[in-house]
């Protein structure tokens, strides 16, 4: 018989609001992270992702709402009131690397560990494992300036693990990385999830969200517009198949008889997107015009994201 209690959420946010002047950037936001979960927060630039993370870190005081952490059994702490006690048990990777350029990888970890009140001997004992986790053992004495972008991000991740946190807050951890570096980063994050750690992640990359996140939160203009497992969200909001059409005369199709074969039509620039439950009749009709190029694929998160947040470029984007 197990004595395990029902798992409480590590982080529970409710009614969260933040205003800058007359501008409401986070509006009545609520979400929670269960132990072992990876929650992805996606949304266009300026949707309120980073402000939400900053409030969860106590760096910005909310204008309303509640942020509760339960990182130790039987102890609920409130942000921002208990910021110091909470941050002692969190791991954070921010959008911009804040590594110390004058320190080697080892020194970066040592100095950062001290901010958590850890003793030098304690930190030094952990450094080899942290460097190995970041695949940086061979770069222990190198300074961040000598590291590639991917290595710097992995060092930032290793640094965030110096206090062995149960919950990690990652703000766009792979932005600006090449595909190899991104894949290595994803693989490292998967390892952390397998170890039972929980992750809150913001990202612009839908493949990243689909790969890593057990649950997604789509926000726009500071409000939650959808929440659920990636596959469920796609099934719930979209037709299962997409036919993309480009080439001469593609945009004219949105008015023509072909459009009637699709459940929904969207146009972006010179490309027409036909969303449908059965693509065959549509593909057959399109084949009559050889000048058109078509791509038939299953609907994905990117389609969902664009449907929910619109295709227009954001002014601050």
């Amino acid at each position, binding site marked *: 018989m197990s004595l395990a209690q029902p798992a409480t959420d590590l982080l529970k946010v409710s009614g969260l609001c933040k205003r800058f002047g007359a501008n409401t950037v986070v509006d009545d936001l609520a979400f929670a992270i269960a132990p072992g979960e990876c929650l992805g927060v996606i949304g266009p630039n300026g949707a309120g992702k980073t402000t939400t993370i900053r409030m969860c870190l106590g760096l910005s005081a909310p204008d309303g709402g509640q942020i509760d952490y339960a990182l130790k059994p039987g102890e609920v702490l*409130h942000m921002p009131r208990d910021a110091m006690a909470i941050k002692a048990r969190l791991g954070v990777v921010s959008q911009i690397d804040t590594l110390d350029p004058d320190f080697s990888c080892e020194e970066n970890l040592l100095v950062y560990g001290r901010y958590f009140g850890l003793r030098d001997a304690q930190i030094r004992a952990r450094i080899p494992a942290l460097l190995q986790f970041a695949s940086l053992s061979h770069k222990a004495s190198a300074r961040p300036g000598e590291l590639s972008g991917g290595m710097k991000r992995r060092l930032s991740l290793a640094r965030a693990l110096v*206090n062995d946190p149960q919950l990690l807050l990652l703000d766009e951890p792979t932005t600006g990385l090449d595909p190899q570096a991104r894949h290595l980063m994803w693989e490292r994050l998967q390892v952390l999830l397998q170890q039972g750690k929980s992750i809150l992640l913001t990202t612009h990359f839908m493949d990243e969200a689909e790969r890593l996140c057990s649950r997604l939160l789509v926000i726009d203009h500071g409000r939650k517009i959808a929440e659920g497992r990636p596959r469920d969200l796609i099934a719930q909001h979209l037709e299962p198949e997409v036919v993309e059409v480009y080439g001469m005369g593609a945009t004219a199709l949105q008015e023509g008889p072909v459009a009637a074969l699709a459940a929904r039509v969207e146009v972006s620039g010179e490309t027409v997107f036909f969303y449908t439950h059965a693509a065959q009749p549509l593909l057959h009709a399109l084949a009559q015009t050889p000048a058109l190029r078509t791509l038939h694929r299953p609907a994905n998160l990117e389609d969902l994201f664009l449907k929910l947040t619109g295709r227009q470029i954001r002014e601050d984007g």
Partner: protein
Amino acid sequence: MALPEVPATTATIQREPAHAGDASPWRAPQLSLRFWPVFLRNLLVWRKLAIPSLVGNIAEPLMWLVAFGYGLGALVGQVTVQTSGGPVLVPYILFLASGSICMSAMNAASFEALYSAFSRMHVQKTWDGIMNAPVRLDDIVLAEMLWASFKAVFTATAILGVMLALGISHSPKLLLAWPVLLVAGVTFSCIALIFNALAKGYDFFTYYFTLFLTPMMFLSGIFFPREQLPPLLRAITDWLPLTSAVELVRPLFMDQWPSHGWRALAVLLVYAVAAFWIALALTRKRFRA
């Protein structure tokens, strides 16, 4: 990867304001020992660059001292200085040395709390990284202030050593000049951090140096006695922080006691406390954006 369990933090939980409305940037500073690892961080960086930075910090003031002290000193001869025991005549080199060491402490503190602190705060985002750990902005500002003060004392100590070697002063009271220079370092670090909090870029600091520090250098009795100034201007300069530092340090160089020592010390401390409070409030505003 097996990591050892981290012990729970033993520090008592200090509570933060719960909502934006409760958090006036002008609320009292919330300081703790968490500043120490931040101070250590700066020390560790500096240890790597200490020798070149030392040369830069002491070479220039010493050149001024030698050129003006010996060169101009031969023309000026002796200068009258007010002490608790009445006016005393001193060689110009001693007059200048005792003033310029205050100037060096001021410059060292100002450079560190402006250019270097700004690099860490704004360019390298070091402060942002630290604030993701359990360290408050207040403690970071305190650490930067104490670090810049340490740099000031370190520079002043090095110059003091050279002055002793040159035989400019052998006053045993120089031991007391040392804590006074620390207080002066604290005062100028606090003032500089106000401008650090307001800066959009390095260019801004040029205003601080040319419009504030340089005039103060000439009005605080470093190069010539303030008795030379018109009465009104002199009355104003009585309240400059650099004047207070000079009026404290100079008699100690002459093996005398300052004539209004406690007042001068109080002026420095009032400036320090007020400036730290303002600097912290402005820095909080900057980071709550």
